[in-house]
């Protein structure tokens, strides 16, 4: 029976899932470590800075995993992903920009920058869904 996607893409998909799960587990571990050390050990400022920067490592691993996956896609799927990335860039930056003004001028509650990555991931997923639907 013929496959929906080529075998190479399936393997790339499996590698992607493995990489993302590993990065996710690493992220949870590093955040738990940081919270525990900061709350219970009163570490020096330099160590707090190091702990605060550690979660960027799994984020970089996610980026590397995604780029490997992207390169394994066929040209049409890469087009879909690239369009979704552009839409995400526009939506998230515009939303952050506008909310910044709302915070400064209208007294809206402060939203930490830590929410940027979840916003990117969610917007990217939704954008890819709509872009793919447009080509059907």
């Amino acid at each position, binding site marked *: 029976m*013929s496959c*929906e*996607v080529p075998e*190479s893409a399936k393997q790339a998909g499996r590698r992607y899932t493995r990489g993302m799960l590993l990065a996710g587990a690493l992220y949870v571990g590093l955040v738990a470590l940081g919270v525990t050390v900061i709350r219970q050990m009163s570490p020096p400022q330099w160590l707090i800075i190091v702990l605060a920067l550690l979660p960027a490592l799994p984020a970089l691993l996610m980026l590397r995993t995604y780029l490997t996956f992207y390169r394994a896609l066929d*040209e*049409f799927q890469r*087009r879909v992903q690239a369009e979704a990335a552009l839409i995400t860039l526009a939506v998230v930056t515009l939303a952050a920009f506008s909310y910044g003004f709302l915070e400064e001028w209208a007294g809206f509650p402060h939203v930490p920058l830590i929410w940027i990555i979840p916003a990117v991931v969610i917007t990217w997923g939704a954008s890819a869904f709509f872009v793919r639907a447009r*080509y059907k």
Partner: protein
Amino acid sequence: MRNRLKVLRAERDWSQADLAERLEVSRQSVNAIETGKYDPSLPLAFKIARVFALPIEQIFSEGDAPAQAAE
């Protein structure tokens, strides 16, 4: 760009998935090309021509002009 992918595929009794497997692309890619929503790159167009054993101009044509059918 117009193309005769659907006709050529039907002549060979291939499904979109069959063609996708031969071209080593996803079925969604074949569907997007077939419906004219996505124009393939030159390397992929050449690969399509190789798979159908036809010259490119008998598969793809510019604008609204139909591709030249094989004689």
